[in-house]
């Protein structure tokens, strides 16, 4: 289906119209591409949940395009979450004395990593690295500057950028 709803439709009517005409389309499409019913169904339902939460739903003129876009983000986050978890566990595997987190701890951990990752998204690698040295290791700016080959005042700027990013992320 395409086109804006007639004026006077309420939000729920529009949503159920989209659901009736496009949910199966999206799920089928995801199933075809992902080849796995479970994951496809998960992505499709999460996508609809996010569509339903859009504040300006009535302004969506092409529901299928919007669903596609949201589904992309859902997939991106799924993959990103998996990547973070994998790199974390890979790194942990290299530390012989490390205590390996339980499944529950792991879930909390991955969500924390996702939140930090989202906040730091868009920062240059050096700024991220500097921030992590400060936050995780408590290094001074002079020490960080030495490791990264930059001045302490540069590290100061990186830190200001990273903390600003954290503030902005908290606003969302």
């Amino acid at each position, binding site marked *: 289906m395409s086109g804006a709803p007639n004026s006077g439709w309420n939000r729920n009517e529009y949503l159920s119209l989209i659901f009736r005409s496009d949910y199966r389309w999206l799920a089928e499409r995801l199933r075809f591409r992902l080849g796995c019913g479970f994951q496809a169904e998960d992505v499709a339902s999460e996508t609809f949940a996010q569509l339903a939460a859009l504040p300006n739903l009535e302004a969506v003129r092409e529901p299928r395009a919007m669903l596609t876009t949201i589904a*992309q983000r859902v997939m991106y986050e799924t993959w990103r979450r998996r990547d973070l978890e994998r*790199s974390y566990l890979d790194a*942990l595997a290299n530390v012989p004395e490390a205590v390996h987190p339980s499944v529950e701890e792991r879930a909390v951990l991955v969500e924390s990593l996702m939140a930090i990752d989202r906040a730091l998204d868009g920062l240059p690698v050096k700024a991220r690295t500097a921030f*992590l040295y400060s936050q995780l290791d408590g290094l001074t700016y002079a020490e960080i500057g030495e490791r990264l080959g930059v001045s302490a005042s540069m590290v100061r700027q990186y830190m200001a950028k990273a903390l600003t990013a954290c503030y*902005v992320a908290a606003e969302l």
Partner: protein
Amino acid sequence: MEAVQDPIVSQAIEWMVLLRSGTATPCDAQAFAGWRGSDPRHDEACRRIEGVLGGFSVCQAAPDATRQALLAKRRTLKLLAGSGVVVAAGLLARHSGMVDALFDEYLAGSFADYRTGTGKREVVTLADGSIMTLNAHSRADRDADGVTLWMGEVFVQHQASRLVAVQTREGRVSATRADFAVRQFNGFSRVAVLAGEVQINPVAGVQMLLRQGEVACLRAAACERQAQLSAQAETAWLDGLLQVSDRSLREVAAALADYRSGFIRVADAVAGLRVSGTFPLDDTDRTLSALGKVLPVRIVFNTDYLVRIEAA
């Protein structure tokens, strides 16, 4: 990065930057506490930042692992990450064709662990020590005992005696000691065995054993040997060659397209012409010209990006 205009926020950040520097004095800490307590908005700005930093508390147990995870190379196509989502969605919604194409590309493994671009082959070592070569324009993800192939083609040279498997949309190809290639087509996959033997399990069909030199077509419901195809020819791409015998021009053009940026359009009138021969993959201009000499076709180069093959 958005600039934050609010002077209170800027001050809060300035304080936090100073206190983490390693050169802050106890006086600074006291002055900060005073500033923070002097106005609820000061406290609020600090709390916000601390809320995000609080996420680090659970990660503190393994700082190096946390660092490694957060600094790991990000997958490309960050199109929809972060806060620009709704805006980007609004813009893209006007070009649903483009969204569709991106979506297909995305789901076909744009974020895959192993990826090759147009005209590039790549050799990687898998966790069990097996060596995997990716053909051009291919995508695969690591999984528990091998890889999931999203698009394109891989060749696995098995080094260890552990099981290694390639999962495609239609089924699973596994071996304990074999050299084999798997290509994902639209709707089926093709398996070619150069050494040893492999087991093929269609997602909804009967298992089959494929031996050295054999080629099979794998569909979701069944797997079928293809006696007319040779495993040697199917894997000629490893040497940068396209080796075909009695294949349609459309199929040959599709294989060449992986080695060229842009499109190759084959006119319907000539798409069914049969092609046999060995052609270099790494010089597609030459191969296309060669095709123009042996077949009754005309090769029209409309810029480097669009090549049309038409009836002569």
